[in-house]
């Protein structure tokens, strides 16, 4: 593959060794992109197998044990090996230094270490899969996870190691944003994607250690019988849930905040407008990062948690929902009076907004506590978090992949094909997950290898949708791979975007900028003169 620019980070050393020892944030970003895409494929294949098994009640292609292992591996792979690193580690690494006019992240060697920690953790997890894999679900609820005979330990250890990779990445971004902004680039001029990554990093560094401790305790319980969560010794399984969700609820925001950043960038770039309310998006990002820590108990309304606890967590969850609602209105407002280019990233953006809104509103419904008693642990929850994780985050991930593909590789992809694939993905998504909402309403619990026959028709619909999704992903993989080599040369700024990352060449040279850019205004200021809203 010969990159179009004469001199770029891609051509600066072509050996494998030069990649494995690189400190260049862009190469590290690309490495993460490749790794996370690989695990997205793995997790996606698990998902497809699950959907095929659910075509019929009773056994379709696998037994209960295989099914239980498969949904655990699907969850573990998608959450820790794909979702959490996908946007921050891949796109964040690539773009944040470019967006703030820096040569690299603050600690390039640590950054490289985070790649290897991720690879090590992923390898241990994969080894666990070959050992037969855990059958606990990605939530590792005790006492099941401490008593089951499957290979839980390697998965725990693998996730524990990946946690360090996450922490290192987060630490790096916080230090980078604080200290390496180019002269004149003040906080309130930062691109919204940088804000999103910054908020995400705060969550990463503060929440992940708690997960590490919880996993350690479960591992100790399995190995030496530590007994902290063992009811037979007076321990409390609900305490495990508290500690686990103290990490895992904010982890949801680790997955979705960066995608909101992507959308904030894309919606400005493709409507050629400034953000409708920059400050609301910034404050709501920080709000989500902090208030997101105080809502974990809404996963426990049916667990025997006290009424007081449920009330407090329910109310806090409502506050978090507000921050998301604000963002959606701001994005819609950005489209107003813009010059909207119908390109694949914009199609993904529109899908994202709709799915995030719908999934988010169902989340609000759960926080009303009384409705949660019906929906908790049913397919409604499965559909809800897939709306957020797939409908929002994967859409944003695909949007980011298309928006920044020319930036990263200097090539264009076939636009018409990309648009059709985007529509197909959105359509497939709706067909897959809307039936799951209805299944949840009917009362179909999650993690069921087998189900009473009256649930079947909706399951069939969902599986049909999943195959559409899979087909859509195949198309995207095919044309993007093709474009890497044969795509038209993109030029420095094919979208005509005023995002700061486009101020360097595409693909950028190793040290990003030949001359440090100046930042008289914030990003995406397309208009020449100010027009009051009423105009």
């Amino acid at each position: 593959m010969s990159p179009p620019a004469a001199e770029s980070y891609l051509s600066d050393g072509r050996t494998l060794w030069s990649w494995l020892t690189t400190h260049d944030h862009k190469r590290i970003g690309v490495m993460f992109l490749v790794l996370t895409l690989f695990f997205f494929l793995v997790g996606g294949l698990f998902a497809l197998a699950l959907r095929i098994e659910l075509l019929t009640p009773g056994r379709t292609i696998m037994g209960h044990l295989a099914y239980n292992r498969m949904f655990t591996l699907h969850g573990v792979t998608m959450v820790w090996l794909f979702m959490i690193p996908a946007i921050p580690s891949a796109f964040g690494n690539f773009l944040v230094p470019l967006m703030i006019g820096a040569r690299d992240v603050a600690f390039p060697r640590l950054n490289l270490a985070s790649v290897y920690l991720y690879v090590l953790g992923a390898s241990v997890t994969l080894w666990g899969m070959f050992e037969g894999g855990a059958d606990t679900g990605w939530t590792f609820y005790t006492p099941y996870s401490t008593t089951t005979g499957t290979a839980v330990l390697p998965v725990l250890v693998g996730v524990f190691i990946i946690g360090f990779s996450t922490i290192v990445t987060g630490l790096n971004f916080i230090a980078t944003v604080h200290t390496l902004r180019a002269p004149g680039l003040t906080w309130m001029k930062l691109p919204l994607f940088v804000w999103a990554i910054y908020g995400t990093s705060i969550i990463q560094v503060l929440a992940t250690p708690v997960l590490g401790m919880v996993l350690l305790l479960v591992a100790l319980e399995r190995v030496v019988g530590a007994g902290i969560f063992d009811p037979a010794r007076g321990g409390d399984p609900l305490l495990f849930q508290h500690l686990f969700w103290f990490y895992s609820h904010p982890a949801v925001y680790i997955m979705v905040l960066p995608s909101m950043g992507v959308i904030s960038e894309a919606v400005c770039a493709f409507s050629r407008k400034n953000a409708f309310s920059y400050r609301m998006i910034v404050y709501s990002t920080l709000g989500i990062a902090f208030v997101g820590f105080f809502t974990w108990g809404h996963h426990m309304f049916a667990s025997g948690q006290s009424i007081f606890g449920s009330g407090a967590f329910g109310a806090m969850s409502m506050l978090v929902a507000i921050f998301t609602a604000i963002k959606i209105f701001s994005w819609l407002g950005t489209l107003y009076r813009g010059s909207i280019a119908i390109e694949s990233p914009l199609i993904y953006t529109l899908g994202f907004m709709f799915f995030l809104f719908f999934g988010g509103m169902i989340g609000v419904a759960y926080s009303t506590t009384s409705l949660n008693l019906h929906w908790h642990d049913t397919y409604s929850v499965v559909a809800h978090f897939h709306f957020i994780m797939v409908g929002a985050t994967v859409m944003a991930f695909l949007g980011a992949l298309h928006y920044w593909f020319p930036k990263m590789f200097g090539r264009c992809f076939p636009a018409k094909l990309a648009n059709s694939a985007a529509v197909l993905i959105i359509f497939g998504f709706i067909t897959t997950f809307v039936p799951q909402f209805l299944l949840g309403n009917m009362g179909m619990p999650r993690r069921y290898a087998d189900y009473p026959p009256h649930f079947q028709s909706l399951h069939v619909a969902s599986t049909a949708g999943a195959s559409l999704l899979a087909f859509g992903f195949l198309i995207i993989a095919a044309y993007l791979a093709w474009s890497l080599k044969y795509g038209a040369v993109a030029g420095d700024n094919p979208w005509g975007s005023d995002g700061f990352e486009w101020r360097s060449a595409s693909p950028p040279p190793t040290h990003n900028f030949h001359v440090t850019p100046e930042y008289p205004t914030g990003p995406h200021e397309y208009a020449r003169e100010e027009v009051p809203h009423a105009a």
Partner: protein
Amino acid sequence: MPPEAVTEHWGSEDARKQAAYLGMWVFIATEVLLFAGLFTAYGVYRSVYPEAFRAAQLTMEVGLGTLNTFLLVSSSILVALAVHAVRGNRPGLGGALLLAAALLGIVFLGVKGVEYSHHVREGGLPGDAYRFAEVPRVGASLFFTLYYLLTGLHALHVTVGVSVLTVLGVRSASGAFGPSYATPVELGGMYWHLVDVIWLFVYPILYLS
């Protein structure tokens, strides 16, 4: 290869220092939250089993615990003096102070080992192995499990800290640091103080009240 106009990695010396400090503080925050899970477990179980926790606590060796507290606080003072010495361009003295602090850390670990051996003899072991006849109540085994987890994790940090201090001490004694480049000593010192502060909280909840 890069043209002249490209700025260096750190735009300024200030940025380098601030990145180092901020990175260290963020790291310290993750350490604090690492212990959070254990402190929470302690709080919950103490509130549920007050009598058992009290009874188990009365069997702890307050003398050794207090000795250890004094050891760590003194070593912290030594490290603070060492940072001052290095900043004041006396890296030799700084190195000696750091090594002395590391020595106190090793003594701390030794005292901890003595304490552990007493508990092992009495059967005050974590989890399944708990066989302590003096406090047979439900919940006491949780106290001992948490005792081992808290002090064990802390001891691990002390071990890391001792290694860091030793390396810094040797390098400082050989003149690697000075007023213009004291950052590693400052950061290593911050880590050691963190270890100290965590112990300051572990000490009262496990030994005193």
